[in-house]
């Protein structure tokens, strides 16, 4: 047990009044953590904790006066004194674990080295849209030269018609496909996914409504109602970061594969701005000009897979995000309304959430909010 007495707060005064406790009995605190706000005749001052440990007793309530030198807090701690161990400065301490993962002494010795080419050859290949792995190298030390690239261009123009072989070739996955394989495997290893499905009734939606924009806005509203799904979760340290901003990743398909550009601060964008961003991203993805920084930082994702085909799905979450909403193909159905059979229009929704970080209640309420927003849209 260790008692911390109220230190001289530097005003030369004999006492101070407790304005506000920042901690409770039973809390475990760190060295330097602010404990309480004390008011003297002249100023309000935060008092940091000199020890690390569990607080067993607070010696006073808000608005009580404590004399300098009188007991302020009792700690339960085995340490005699919290040794801050320094002579200058302040070292950052934490209960963090240093996770080395798989450390390899020396190099990884995996994959064969990449292609060797003269820098000029690379530039040329890029300009001519030539895949260097197809080019025959004739330069010194097995290098591809600029001439090699030029020769390849001439030959390929000649040989376009002569490939009649039907034997398939194994190809190493590259670029976006490769990333997809790795990312999906990692997600499978770490995430605990649960998918809830539901249909949203779009019958009363005004014609020519921009459904994608409406869904984006519905996600923003649902994120406000249930921020637990607008969160990043670190499974190793068991920490999560809940966001106020809503950065929606928009799954966009292309011939190269799936890209997920991010609509930053969707909560602050107007309908036009959202539509504009969606269109721009569709263009830049297909032209492969989307910037790397635009592919980062999504707090939640939307996948409109139904544009093509499919009703319900179990879309996959990519950590550190914890939720993804999938919209299936809208269709007309026969539905009961006020005891009558009517033709209505529904869109199937599939919400996958990471059950390590999100509860069933939070997820269902999120989905409920999305549906309620869409069904009441004007």
């Amino acid at each position, binding site marked *: 047990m260790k008692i911390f007495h109220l230190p001289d707060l*530097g005003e030369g005064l004999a006492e101070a009044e407790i304005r506000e406790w920042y901690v409770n009995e039973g809390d475990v605190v760190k060295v330097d953590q602010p404990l309480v706000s004390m008011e003297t005749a002249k100023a309000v001052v935060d008092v*940091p904790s000199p020890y690390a440990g569990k607080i067993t007793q607070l010696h006073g309530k808000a608005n009580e006066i404590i004399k300098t030198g009188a007991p302020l807090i009792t700690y339960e701690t085995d340490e005699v004194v919290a040794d801050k161990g320094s002579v200058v400065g302040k070292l950052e301490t934490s209960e963090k674990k240093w996770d080395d993962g798989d450390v390899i002494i020396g190099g990884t010795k995996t994959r064969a080295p990449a292609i060797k080419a003269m820098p000029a050859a690379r530039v040329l290949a890029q300009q001519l849209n030539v895949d260097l792995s197809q080019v025959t190298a004739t330069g010194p030390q097995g290098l591809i030269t600029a001439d090699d690239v030029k020769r390849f261009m001439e030959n390929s123009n000649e040989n376009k018609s002569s490939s009649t072989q039907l034997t398939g070739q194994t190809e190493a996955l590259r670029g976006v496909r490769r990333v997809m394989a790795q990312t999906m495997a990692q997600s499978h290893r770490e995430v605990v996914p649960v998918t809830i499905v539901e249909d949203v009734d779009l019958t009363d939606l005004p014609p020519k409504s921009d459904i994608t924009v409406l869904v984006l806005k519905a996600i923003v509203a649902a994120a406000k109602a249930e921020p637990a799904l607008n969160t990043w979760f670190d499974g190793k340290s068991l920490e999560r970061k809940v966001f106020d901003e809503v950065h929606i990743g928009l799954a966009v398909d292309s011939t190269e594969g799936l890209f997920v550009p991010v609509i930053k601060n969707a909560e602050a964008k107007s309908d036009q701005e959202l539509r504009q961003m969606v269109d721009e991203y569709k263009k830049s993805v297909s032209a492969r000009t989307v910037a790397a920084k635009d592919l980062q930082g999504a707090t939640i994702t939307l996948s409109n897979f139904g544009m093509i085909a499919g009703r319900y799905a179990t879309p996959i979450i990519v950590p550190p995000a914890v939720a993804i909403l999938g919209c299936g193909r809208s269709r007309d159905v026969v539905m009961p309304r006020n005891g009558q059979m009517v033709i209505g229009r529904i869109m199937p929704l599939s919400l996958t959430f990471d059950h390590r970080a999100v509860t069933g209640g939070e997820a269902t309420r999120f989905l409920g909010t999305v549906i309620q927003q869409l069904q009441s849209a004007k």
Partner: protein
Amino acid sequence: MKIIDRFEVPYYQYLNEESQLTDDAPQQVAKDSNTLLNLYRTMVLVRTMDTKAVALQRTGKLGTYPSTRGQEAVFVGVGNALAKEDIFVPYYRDMGTLLQRGVKLSQILQYWGGDERGNCYNSEDFPYSVPIGSQSLHAAGAAYAVKFRKENRAVLSMFGEGATSQGDVYEAMNVAGIWKLPIVFVVCNNQWAISVSRQAQTAAHSIAQKAIAAGFSGEQIDGNDIIAVQHRTVEALHAAREKGEPRLLEMVCYRQHDHTTADDASRYEPKNMREQEWKKEPIARLRRYLEQSGLWSEKEEEILQAECAVKVDEAVKEYLSVEPQPLESMFDYLYASLPDIYKTQRDMLKDVEIVAHG
């Protein structure tokens, strides 16, 4: 066999532990009430500021800070003794001296608060020196420049007793002796170099006697007796200024706080030692003398404490209100004029600035 040399190291005390003037105290001391009151007031201000600085550090508003508690007589006495045109070369505990030489209280805080502008003194004095003892050589160099230009000035170099183990300090003393430099070396012997006691630092019986090896005189002074501190320093500066005679003054006092606010002396300091030594502390000692001489009273003390509190508060307010320097200032004083090749890096900082400081 014949003895070719003996040496003597005098010890000076003019105001003893009972606050009485000793027999060899100079006559005029008893009559110099202005100086005594000035010394007292300054010591109290220094202690008030020092206590506040520690509290600021404890509440996260100041970086690591080295207290001068218990050592006020040394720094204040030396500061009072220095002539305006003399040059002072501090180490890092010298607030009590710098205060009397044009440095503002808020500037002291600024330095320990992590802002280089804390070194912008309104004087010719040297800035703090953190690498121990290295500044004593600068002081010797400055003393040479003074001599070369035939200026009527002295240089005073201050450091702790730990510094006297550094080669630099002996090198500075050696050259001062052989080149007859107008310099006074003052050692604030507060008995501790972080955790290493004075006894473990050197086998020399006194620090003062190290001057003998450099060819000049050294004396030991009761560092809790501000009257002796001030008088002997005036004497030494006079000898340096007028006759080019260097001298070493060892002020014996006690470190009444941890080495810095980040140190924990309970790990190595014998229990009760501070309490024991506190009986000799300089402010109480002078106060008793002033009261016994009818120059001070409880009422005056109250007024002084209030005045000091106000001055310190103003200094803290000023310190806390200063905006941090713009990030590009990292480059502004690297050279007289920044070579072009560094301009791109400087520009990089401008972008960070917008994010950092808006």
